[in-house]
């Protein structure tokens, strides 16, 4: 079962390279995504048995993030269908600097996309720290070509930074793994295997000093991938230059994988009674990330970068939640779910706007609501959702975290948290409403929306471009007013694993 | 509701005697100027004459202009209902009637002002604007001075929350202003009285605030507002003004004449005598003082406010 979850996309990916006709490839993409989603659903219904003698195993956190990844991927691949069919594959002009460029081959793109899915799945299911490391690094490598889909210099630059920074970070994480191994060397020939469960069992005997060092390395290492400031620097570039489909996945799924990796370490630390050590660090990183996000969202000139920085903000909130602990643990888990879907939706909509305006500048774009009625509404709705206004999900998770912080008596943290949230709100509100309201301006010469005649339209936009974000919008709306019991159950368990509730 | 029949007599008294006050003031002024002066009953003649005349209306005006005088007169007349004449209670007395009184005068002002604005004449606009400016300061002064007096003889702090101790109506307040009251809190009453005096001069557009005689001069306030009224309307305005003057004089006289014998006839007559004295006083002031510059008037009025506040502070100290 678990192996199928991983192998299915990998095999399909390899198949992709072989298949010629585009239609078949795209169908295959959907099929795989759907199958993956179904398998995940089954996994939710009843937990699959562990595989590879316990190296691959689905526990609550894994299940949670697997669910997010799989669901988001399904929706995004739907969007990708429309995206790929709208994309023209010849040489075309870059709308910012005007030089000509092409896209990389679709088969390669889809291949990497599926591999990416496979590797993310691997992260969620693997219990062995080494394996987690391998998987996380693999996600970096498989996603690099995706970011370089549009073959022009900006995306190339973004890709280079992505690879360099993330690889360095991940390398540090590897060292962290070795430190962990040292920490788990009880005596000359007695090693605790690097499985999460075993480490937790024999946590009390671990060498605290090495464990702490290991935590630092892993935090910084995976934190680079997660996008915690000040290791976040690759994130805005990658998100703004990659196609919106990929940005959605990067923000919605990949960050969670890195987050999960950190959670695993935290699990061990908590078991070893060192929970507080990690928590303080995570609160610090969380607040700092929010501060950086606030600084760069203010007066941001590029709306995809704005979304990217908002991701920085929200990973900050995630780690803040874990750091505060207690009730905030639950809040953080819930927040991960909400943020993934919200941000995914926002990036997809951003893709639509970009396609219509051929422009990423927040100053030139005006009147989205009139030009793209559906996308415009979704854009505003997404904004309201992401800044945590009810009835969307993020409101609940942020409220939970705030309550935990205040109940813990961490008033300073709570005040900074609210202050930064307010600043970010102001920054985003200014930009979003500048874009969505007013008379249309900054439209390219050709008609604002030229969806291919083949796909049928909704409110003047192609269905495949607006339905996926609609779905996501519905999801976050529902999560905002009703959290299904099974989800609550998993969230609770996941929170418990890191010593919160 | 409590209405003692005897006190109803106040109303006709006021109706009859009010215009006389104008005559008295004019006569006093004439005496000081060494002139013979117009007859005492001049105001009555004017009103009678005006009532017989027809009216001219500006094309600019609407019904608001015609409503102005009627509304003012009606409001003033209603105000008479709550004004006690010295110790003898007013036909209507209820706690808070002093607020009612102040706000009825507000109604008068409101309608006079919009009637003035209705003509679209810059002069009347100017007068209106000054009228409202001064009222902003006059109204608190009046209320505070009355408040100060209401505290006199009120049972202090602790048990004053018994329902009857809940604050007094004008009539009760004035009933309490006996010689004894003067003897133990004379300063308070003096301050309050002077505040009321200043408000009286302002509200009735007398010198030093305003000059009722010089027609059409940009220094004027009240007179310029009624420039366009003619015939019966103007009669009503004159009469309303007279009644307003009567009301204020009555309020002042009630303070200055602490005669509370309980004998209705005696009390009333003394107070009415007092009212006439005050009219003479006004005449004296008008003849010995010059009009203040407009910029000075707010200071005069805030001075009244300060008197009232002082009075309250004093009475609370007791």
């Amino acid at each position, binding site marked *: 079962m678990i192996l199928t979850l991983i192998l299915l996309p990998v095999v399909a990916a390899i198949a992709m390279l072989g298949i010629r006709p585009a239609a078949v490839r795209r169908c295959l993409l959907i099929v795989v995504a759907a199958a993956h989603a179904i398998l995940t659903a089954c996994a939710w219904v009843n937990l699959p048995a562990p595989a590879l003698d316990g190296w691959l195993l689905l526990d609550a956190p894994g299940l949670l993030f697997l669910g997010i990844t799989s669901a988001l991927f399904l929706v995004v691949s739907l969007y990708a269908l429309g995206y790929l069919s709208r994309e023209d594959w010849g040489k075309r002009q870059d709308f910012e600097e005007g030089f000509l460029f092409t896209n990389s081959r679709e088969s390669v793109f889809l291949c990497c996309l599926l591999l990416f899915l496979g590797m993310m799945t691997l992260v969620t299911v693997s219990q062995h720290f*080494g394996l987690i490391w391998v998987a996380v690094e693999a996600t970096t490598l498989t996603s690099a070509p995706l970011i*370089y889909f549009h073959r022009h210099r900006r995306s190339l630059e973004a890709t*280079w930074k992505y*690879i*360099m920074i993330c690889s360095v970070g991940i*390398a540090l994480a590897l060292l962290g793994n*070795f430190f962990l191994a040292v920490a788990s060397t009880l*005596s000359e020939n007695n090693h605790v295997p690097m499985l999460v469960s075993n480490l937790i069992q024999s946590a009390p005997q671990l060498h605290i000093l090495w464990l702490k*060092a290991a935590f630092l390395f892993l935090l910084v290492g995976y934190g680079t991938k997660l996008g915690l400031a000040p290791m976040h620097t690759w994130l805005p570039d990658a998100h703004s230059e990659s196609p919106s489909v990929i940005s959605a996945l990067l923000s919605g799924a990949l960050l969670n994988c890195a987050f999960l990796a950190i959670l695993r370490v935290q699990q061990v630390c908590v078991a070893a009674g060192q929970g507080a050590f990690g928590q303080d660090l995570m609160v610090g990183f969380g607040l700092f990330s929010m501060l950086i996000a606030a600084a760069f969202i203010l007066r941001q000139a590029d709306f995809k970068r704005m979304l990217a920085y908002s991701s920085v903000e929200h990973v900050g909130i995630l780690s803040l939640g874990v750091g505060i602990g207690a009730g905030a643990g639950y809040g953080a888990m819930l927040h991960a779910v909400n943020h993934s879907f919200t941000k995914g939706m926002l990036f997809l909509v951003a893709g639509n706007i970009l396609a219509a305006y051929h422009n990423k500048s927040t100053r030139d774009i005006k009147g989205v609501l009139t030009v793209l009625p559906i996308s415009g509404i979704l854009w505003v709705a997404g904004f309201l959702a992401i800044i945590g206004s009810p009835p969307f999900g993020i409101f609940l998770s942020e409220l939970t975290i705030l309550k935990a912080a205040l109940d813990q008596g961490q008033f300073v943290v709570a005040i900074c948290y609210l202050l930064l949230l307010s600043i970010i709100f102001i920054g985003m509100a200014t930009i979003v409403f500048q874009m969505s309201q007013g008379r249309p301006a900054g439209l390219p010469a050709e008609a604002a929306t030229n969806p291919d005649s083949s796909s049928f339209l909704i409110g003047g936009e192609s269905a495949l471009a607006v339905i996926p974000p609609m779905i996501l919008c519905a999801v976050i709306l529902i999560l905002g007013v009703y959290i299904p019991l099974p989800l609550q159950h998993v969230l609770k368990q996941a929170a418990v694993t890191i010593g919160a509730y | 509701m409590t209405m003692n029949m005897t006190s109803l007599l106040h109303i006709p008294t006021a109706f009859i005697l009010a215009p006389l006050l104008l005559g008295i003031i004019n006569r006093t002024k004439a005496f000081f100027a060494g002139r013979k002066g117009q007859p005492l009953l001049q105001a009555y003649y004017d009103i009678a004459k005006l009532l017989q005349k027809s009216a001219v209306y500006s094309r600019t005006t609407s019904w608001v202009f015609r409503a102005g005088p009627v509304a003012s007169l009606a409001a003033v007349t209603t105000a008479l209902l709550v004004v006690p004449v010295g110790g003898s209670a007013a036909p209507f007395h209820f706690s808070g009637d002093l607020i009612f009184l102040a706000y009825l005068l507000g109604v008068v002002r409101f309608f006079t002002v919009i009637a003035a604005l209705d003509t679209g004449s810059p002069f009347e606009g100017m007068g209106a604007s000054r009228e409202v400016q001064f009222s902003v300061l006059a109204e608190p002064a009046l209320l505070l001075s009355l408040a100060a007096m209401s505290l006199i003889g009120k049972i202090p702090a602790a048990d004053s929350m018994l329902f009857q101790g809940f604050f007094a109506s004008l009539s009760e307040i004035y009933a309490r202003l006996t010689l004894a009251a003067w003897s133990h809190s004379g300063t308070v009453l003096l301050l309050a009285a002077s505040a009321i005096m200043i408000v009286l001069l302002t509200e009735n557009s007398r010198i030093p605030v305003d000059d009722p005689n010089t027609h059409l001069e940009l220094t004027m306030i009240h007179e310029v507002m009624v420039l366009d009224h003619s015939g019966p309307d103007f009669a009503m305005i004159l009469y309303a003004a007279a009644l307003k003057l009567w009301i204020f004089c009555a309020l002042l006289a009630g303070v200055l004449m602490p005669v509370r014998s309980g004998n209705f006839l005696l009390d009333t007559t003394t107070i009415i005598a007092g009212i006439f004295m005050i009219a003479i006083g006004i005449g004296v002031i008008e003849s010995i003082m010059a009009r203040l510059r407009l910029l000075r008037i707010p200071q005069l009025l805030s001075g009244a406010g300060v008197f009232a506040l002082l009075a309250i502070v004093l009475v609370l100290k007791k």
Partner: protein
Amino acid sequence: MELWIDILIVLLILTNLKLMGSSRLSACIRVVALQGILLGILPLIAGHGQIPFRVMLLSAITIAVKGMVFPWLLLRALRTSNARREMEPFIGYSTSMLLSVGLIGLAIWMGGRLPLPVPLKSPLVVPLALFTIMTGLLAIISRRKAITQVLGYLVMENGIYAFGLTLAQKEPMLIELGTLLDVFMAVFVMGITIFHINREFDHIDTDLLTTLRD
């Protein structure tokens, strides 16, 4: 045995210093290659008693990959790119040397602060590993060319590897291989990217890679 280890370690440290000091790219690549080979040998003599098979195999693979494949890849990339052969650093060579000496001190201090649960033949291994990692980072940070950054990454990787090979011997084979594979892939992808960079900007200085900013 101890003697050999110490010699090896000293050699490794010297390679690091040489890397920081030398100005020619090709030379640097060769240094890194040499470092890779030395690393390959390290576990063979660092181990206790007779050497288990998996260690032999690993060191063999290491020597092959780090000592031969990577250098070859990089030299090829260097040849294709018509980049000038010197590496204009942000930080001058002498300064870098001084810095790296400082880093040695830091590494030794840290090693001192991190007592090993299992005593090793040479106390210098941990500082060596840390120092190598720092050198790698320093190389990445202080040099302009994309290739040198890859080199820096490799050196860093070597350092980590040194640590892993000598201390965490009980790591399962699968992980070792997976790690190696990842590193290999990483370098491979970087190579490709460098190739593209070279094609786009027709040189491989990273100075022009600064258009994305706020």
